[in-house]
């Protein structure tokens, strides 16, 4: 029988749908990350909101402009966007199980095979970040930029999450194991805490302030906070987008290069 080859987008669509089905069939795998992110939000707000929030305007602690939730919500969103790191795990699972080899024997573009888990990673980031923002909004977050501000934050979270997706794909294919891909997301912890996580940068001790200046997470947090607290302050927001977008660009390019070597025949 002669079959017309399916188009690239058909292939991408089919492969993405398959991964989404897998995601839907093990919903428990989504829980830890969303739980940690929600937990951060509630606990940090509970512990620190009293000091840094409230009506402390005019005191040394007025950086949150009276609503600490607006300040701490970006931390949870950044944490939620790490769920993009699942992309690498999906890809390596398919390599380990032999599904990848099966696809190599079919007339499918290898780029569709590599892109599908990244698309699903993106879906995950958007879902988790939206859930966290909804939770934040319910308990009292209130962006200075209005409702539109949430979309700007979501956009930044998306790029940041894609950065983790690219990173995990590269680490996963290079190590050839899902543990390798999983380990990649550990990078997230120092990244999240060597940053102005709980207070603005100027309040950090010298060494941490220096570390934070080199940590891209800092600029993403500051960008999101500008949206939440100050309004459309162009330079901080732009910096946030540039850093998140740059991170995504670099790791995704790295992922493409790694995946290319991995899919070559041995």
């Amino acid at each position: 029988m002669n079959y017309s080859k399916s188009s690239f987008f058909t292939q991408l669509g089919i492969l993405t749908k398959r991964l989404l089905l897998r995601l839907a069939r093990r919903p428990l795998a989504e829980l830890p990350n969303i739980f940690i992110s929600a937990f951060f939000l509630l606990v940090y707000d509970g512990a620190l909101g009293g000091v840094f929030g409230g009506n402390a305007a005019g005191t040394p602690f007025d950086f949150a402009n009276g609503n600490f939730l607006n300040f701490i919500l970006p931390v949870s969103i950044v944490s939620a966007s790490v769920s993009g790191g699942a992309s690498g795990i999906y890809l390596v699972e398919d390599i380990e199980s032999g599904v990848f080899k099966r696809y190599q024997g079919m007339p499918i573009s290898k780029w569709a095979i590599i892109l599908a888990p990244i698309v699903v990673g993106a879906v995950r980031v958007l879902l988790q970040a939206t859930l966290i923002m909804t939770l934040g909004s319910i308990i009292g977050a209130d962006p200075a930029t209005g409702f539109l501000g949430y979309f700007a934050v979501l956009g930044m979270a998306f790029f940041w999450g894609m950065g983790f997706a690219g990173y995990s794909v590269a680490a996963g294919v290079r190590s050839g194991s899902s543990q390798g891909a999983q380990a990649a997301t550990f990078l997230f912890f120092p990244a999240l805490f060597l940053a102005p996580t709980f207070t603005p940068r100027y309040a950090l001790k010298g060494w941490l302030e220096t570390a934070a200046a080199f940590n891209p997470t800092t600029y993403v947090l500051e960008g999101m906070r500008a949206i939440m607290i100050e309004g459309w302050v162009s330079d901080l927001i732009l910096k946030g987008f540039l850093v998140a977008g740059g991170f995504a660009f670099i790791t995704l390019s790295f992922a493409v290069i790694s995946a290319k070597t991995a899919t070559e025949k041995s």
Partner: protein
Amino acid sequence: MLLAVEAKNLKKTFKTKQGNVEAVRDVSFKVNKGEIFGILGPNGAGKSTTILMLTTLLRITSGTAKINDLDVVKNDSEVRNKIGIALQDTGIDNLLTARELFYTTARLWGLSKSKSKDRTKEMLNLVGLTEAADRRVKTYSGGMKRRLDLGLSLVHKPEVLFLDEPTTGLDPGSRRVLWDEIKKLRDEGVTIILTTQYLEEADELANRISIIDEGLVVAEGTPDELKSSIGGDVITLTFRSDDDAIKAQTIIENSDIEDKQIRVTVENGAEKIPNLLNLLVSKDINVQSVSANKPSLDDVFLKVTGYRLEGEKTLIEESK
């Protein structure tokens, strides 16, 4: 053009950190259209590596291979359209159902949505998974998974089918079901290349067999040709103790020993048995039992490799 597969001096060297591994040293064979060709060999013989090279999934170190006159390196995508592949390490998505997998596979092969649905039904029926179609593959038995795997390799109606150890690890019942399925496919005109560690399987299914060991072809022919290449009968003598067997082996020329048994190939078993028994009795060695048989593939394997194929033992044990 009557050849479905032509492999010429295939060689594969893996470069690893521990040095080079010559997985396939020199493998050549021809497969006629419409036949089942068996590649028989123990674990590590190079069967899977050979299959991966023939199916375009592994780079060939040297040598050439053609499928339906198409070069597997130069015309790899055309080759992939013509062949079906069921690899040894079945890559099946455990979280999906057989119906979803058939549908997805059909779509990826370029069938429209409605044609994919029809093909899915057809395939489920063909491999006997209609009832289990909407259960996740995770819940399937080993035999069901192999049947599913076979079915997935057939979705695009390949002309040449490669099956790498399709029944390894299955119970005798499930093995039978797959054997029948494979024969049915041949009767429909599909050329099948299958690898196996089981002599019985090669004997039952293959029109022709290539025995490979340590990356080399050590014998080739139809099962009957291979058996008659040994000629005569195989006499098996069983003793009460290993010691007796060892003593007997030193007396009987050209005999092979295995535990309490020795085997010797002779031109005419019926004539030779009394002589052998007399000889042993004269040396005070007690024989527990004696039998003469036409040579089996087992004997062929022993002759060409110098050892017995382990897989067969496990097969015998399993089928008890």
